[in-house]
């Protein structure tokens, strides 16, 4: 049996994943390569921040300690965040953003498809919504992988570099710690390890269509779920949490 603390920690992880990536995506607003894409990227950012609010809202509900969605976003430090590292990496150029998005979309779609079946009704409902969003996200990011990979030499090289720089962070997507195993056993969470073969198959197919090379598995960085982050996260938080830290306890 899973207890309240375990469920809370599990949901909080998903909230952190969503918020951190949504925040990175939001950094494209007024920075897109052309207006149409600027708007489209902002839609994806809004989906993720929206998702974070649902997960954090549920976390607060489970905690039942007077906390709110904002308590989790604004009042925790770097070591308290438990997102997977790939989500927090700085925005980078458009190739990096799209490479990350594609790798995450392939994962997230498969993940949400399973989470829809969760015995936890709230999680299942959030996943239902997220799954639909992911279908569209993946359609977009796949197109971009093809366009950039098979576009110009420059776009190909930029995208290949991005994939290379991201590859070592993808292993973490499929790691199962004790909590993941318990949640999966209880049919509340997802057996992410089981998603890996299909993910590799899909990603390999798309990258090869895009004339890109699947990198070798010669480096792996993990630690997000334990609060061991890249240095980029602290800067992101100091920016994001500035007002709540400078003027604590106020309404906004």
């Amino acid at each position, binding site marked *: 049996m899973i207890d309240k603390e375990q469920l809370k920690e599990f949901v909080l992880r998903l909230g952190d994943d969503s*918020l951190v990536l949504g*925040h990175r995506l*939001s*950094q494209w*607003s*007024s*920075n*897109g*390569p*052309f*207006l*149409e*894409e*600027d*708007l489209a990227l*902002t*839609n994806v*950012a*809004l989906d993720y*921040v*929206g998702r*974070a*609010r649902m997960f*954090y809202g549920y976390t607060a509900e489970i905690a039942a300690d007077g906390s709110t*969605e*904002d308590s989790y*976003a*604004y009042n925790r430090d770097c070591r308290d965040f438990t997102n997977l590292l790939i989500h927090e990496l700085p925005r980078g*150029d*458009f190739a990096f953003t799209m490479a990350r998005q594609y790798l995450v979309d392939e994962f997230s779609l498969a993940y949400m498809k399973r989470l829809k079946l969760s015995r936890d009704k709230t999680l299942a409902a959030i996943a239902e919504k997220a799954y639909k969003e992911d279908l569209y996200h993946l359609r977009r990011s796949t197109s971009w992988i*093809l*366009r*950039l990979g*098979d*576009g*110009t030499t*420059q*776009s190909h090289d*930029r995208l290949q570099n991005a994939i290379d720089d991201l590859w070592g962070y993808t292993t973490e997507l499929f790691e199962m710690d004790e909590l993941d195993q318990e949640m999966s056993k209880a049919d509340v969470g997802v057996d992410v390890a089981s998603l890996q073969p299909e993910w590799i198959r899909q990603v390999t197919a798309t990258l090869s269509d895009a004339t890109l090379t699947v990198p070798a598995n010669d480096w792996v960085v993990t630690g997000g779920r334990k609060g061991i982050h890249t240095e980029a996260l602290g800067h*992101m938080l100091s*920016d*994001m949490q*500035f*007002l*709540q830290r400078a*003027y604590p306890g*106020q*309404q*906004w």
Partner: protein
Amino acid sequence: MSEEVKSEQEVLFQKRIDAEEKIEPKDWMPEKYRQTLIRQMSQHAHSEVIGMQPEGNWLTRAPTLHRKCILLAKVQDEGGHGLYLYSAAETLGISRDELVKALHDGVAKYASIFNYPALTWADIGAIGWLVDGAAIVNQISLQRTSYGPYARSMVRICKEESFHQRQGYQIMVTLSQGSHEQKAMAQDALDRFWWPSLMMFGPHDAESAHSAQSMKWKIKRQSNDQLRQKFIDQSVKQADVIGLKIPDPALKWNADRGHYDIGAIDWSEFARVIKGDGPCNRQRLQHHNRVHAEGAWVRDAVAAYEAKHKQRSTRAA
């Protein structure tokens, strides 16, 4: 084309406008009407797009997740409005690339209000409340402008903008009910944005260079001063309700006119900011230039991919 035929067309054109009929893209129009529209619509479009920057500067620092979503959606709307207006301008036979180039070359202008910095969170409130508020007064009037595509994009823009002013005002309401520091922050934002907002309507009617002809062609439907007055009258009460003070000692209700009188607008500041001496002029254009240049390889890739793809499918067929 002979002079006589041309003037006959011009008479017909003015008749149509006088009868409140819209001018549509394929219609004959005086070259100067076309040029005036391109100037005004592109300036409007550039303003929307440059206007994403001061607020975009707070996207990563929005104080709550709810505010973050609202601000993201709002800044996105501004981009959308720029896009609608560029598209409408394209019906006049000019491309978006040409319009953007004119902006980068300094030939085309954007609203000078966006050369002011958004320094505190309260500025996000003041921009929504006052800057969008002023823009909406102008845009509501432009829903009746004589050029069809411009009028139609204004209708869509006004529909979407209706939440922009409210979200800004709501920020001001919240701040003015908050701590002493928050209230001071709100008052400071009002102090800095009040006068520049009034300047957004442009010079007084007597000094407005383009107004008379634009009114005759019904590109403009109400004069700068009429629109400004409308904005002043509505804003005074809104400030009062939340206990903020409009920074104008001369502000006074004039019962005879049925309007508020205000002190003198400092037009030398307006001229300075337009000329390039506003706090953020250089950054705004540099940002736009940089983003446009950084996006070039992406746009090239899209075109290259499409060309390859087409070639392949032709070969396959």
